[in-house]
């Protein structure tokens, strides 16, 4: 499944990377601690967080994530959007909570880490 299908199914608002939504999503990761995401998210994952700081773009870029969903109706900072445009990181937002977004992604078949 790609970002465009996810965006449509969850009615996300696309903040950056409108032209990058054909990216395939390999799975999902939800966390608000950036060092944890650096350690555990995988390439191509969609990342669900309430963080809006520009640091999220650096994390997504380092881990080569497919994109970021910002939850709870939070608005990304201007610097975050500027960096995301530069680094080609799609950012989507939703008024739903992390739990609800993850539940819907799961219904769509987006898996997490299921090694354990």
């Amino acid at each position, binding site marked *: 499944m790609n970002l465009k299908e996810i965006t449509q199914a969850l009615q996300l608002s696309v903040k950056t990377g409108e032209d990058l939504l054909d990216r395939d999503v390999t799975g999902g990761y939800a966390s608000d601690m*950036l*060092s944890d995401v*650096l350690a555990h998210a995988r390439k191509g994952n969609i990342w669900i967080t309430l*963080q809006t700081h*520009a640091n999220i*773009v*650096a994390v997504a870029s380092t881990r080569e994530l497919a994109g970021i969903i910002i939850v709870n109706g939070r608005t990304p900072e201007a610097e975050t959007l500027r*960096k995301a445009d530069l680094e080609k990181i799609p950012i989507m937002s939703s008024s739903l909570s992390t739990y609800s977004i993850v539940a819907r992604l799961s219904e769509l078949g987006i898996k997490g880490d299921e090694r354990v």
Partner: protein
Amino acid sequence: MEDVSLHILDIAENAIRAKARNVEIRVIQNDREDTLILEITDDGMGMNEEETKRSVDPFFTTKAGKKVGLGLPFLAQSAEEAEGMMIVESAVGRGTKVTAVFKLRHIDRKPLGNLDETVRCLKAAHPEVDFFFECLTPGQ
């Protein structure tokens, strides 16, 4: 970063990469003013004005072959999440001072973590560097 001590580890490693011989780590916990201040001062090579300004940009790094430098940006974010701020002062050839201020009792303020263990690790890993560590509690 789970706690403040991990930030200290990270920033101290910056100082060591900048060839510091002395690193001062000060944690000032002021109950009356409701502040937690972290100061890390080094006598390394320092940065010019432009580099100092860019040091809080996660896409700025002096490390060869790296695209991002997250130590200072992550500390700045942690401070801001606890209604605080971070200041970087630096002078080429003289060193760098990083000050992070947190609201002590802010619900999102990260715990201190194991400061003694962190300083012990730094000393063991870098015997050539002098680490000075103190924890102050004025207003108590």
